[in-house]
């Protein structure tokens, strides 16, 4: 039973395309996140949703749009992909009573 699952694990696409990454958690957590890990392995938060409400929205191009249909799902849609969007994108979740995240296995996005 995967706690936080992301699909797809790998995504190769051309510049200018639109793509989505899906995330689902079965832990009953109320908060979900998207993080970006760049080519130097640096991890930085992009978005956070709490009970379907956008809580954290870091300085991210508006080509990136998160969507949370329910508190178990948080998807990331990216429009007009650019070469610089190539990275590993991690979904994570956490519970309000606890700290620390459970991470998904990441999606490696390559824009060519």
């Amino acid at each position, binding site marked *: 039973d995967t706690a936080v699952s992301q699909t797809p694990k790998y995504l190769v696409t051309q510049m200018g395309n639109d793509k989505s990454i899906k995330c689902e958690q079965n832990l009953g957590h109320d908060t979900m996140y998207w993080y970006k890990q760049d080519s130097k*392995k*640096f991890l930085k938060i992009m978005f*956070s949703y709490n009970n379907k409400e956008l809580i954290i929205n870091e300085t991210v191009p508006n080509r990136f749009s998160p969507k949370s249909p329910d508190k178990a799902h948080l998807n990331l849609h990216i429009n007009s992909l650019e070469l610089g969007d190539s990275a590993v994108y991690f979904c994570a979740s*956490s519970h*309000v009573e606890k*700290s620390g995240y459970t991470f998904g*296995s*990441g999606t490696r996005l390559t824009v060519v």
Partner: protein
Amino acid sequence: AQTVTQSQPEMSVQEAETVTLSCTYDTSESNYYLFWYKQPPSRQMILVIRQEAYKQQNATENRFSVNFQKAAKSFSLKISDSQLGDTAMYFCAFMKQRLQGAQKLVFGQGTRLTINP
């Protein structure tokens, strides 16, 4: 804003040795959490150990322990009896204590640890 600094980009030790990874952070908060995450070549982010700032006792998880120095804002990770499976990137991370909603994890740059046979 909080910052986390890991000053050792890479480290390498022999199997069974003890290794210590350094981490310092900067915050004006008094209540917060600190974490060490491990990222092996599989890419999965795995929580290694967690420390609550209000607890004076250093956290321990089997072969992993921390040296938490709140006044110095230092949070080092010690790995005893290192094993080949400990080879990974290790990230130190900070989170403000949250009362509701979400709090972000702020990560350091990472230390690439290699355990040699």
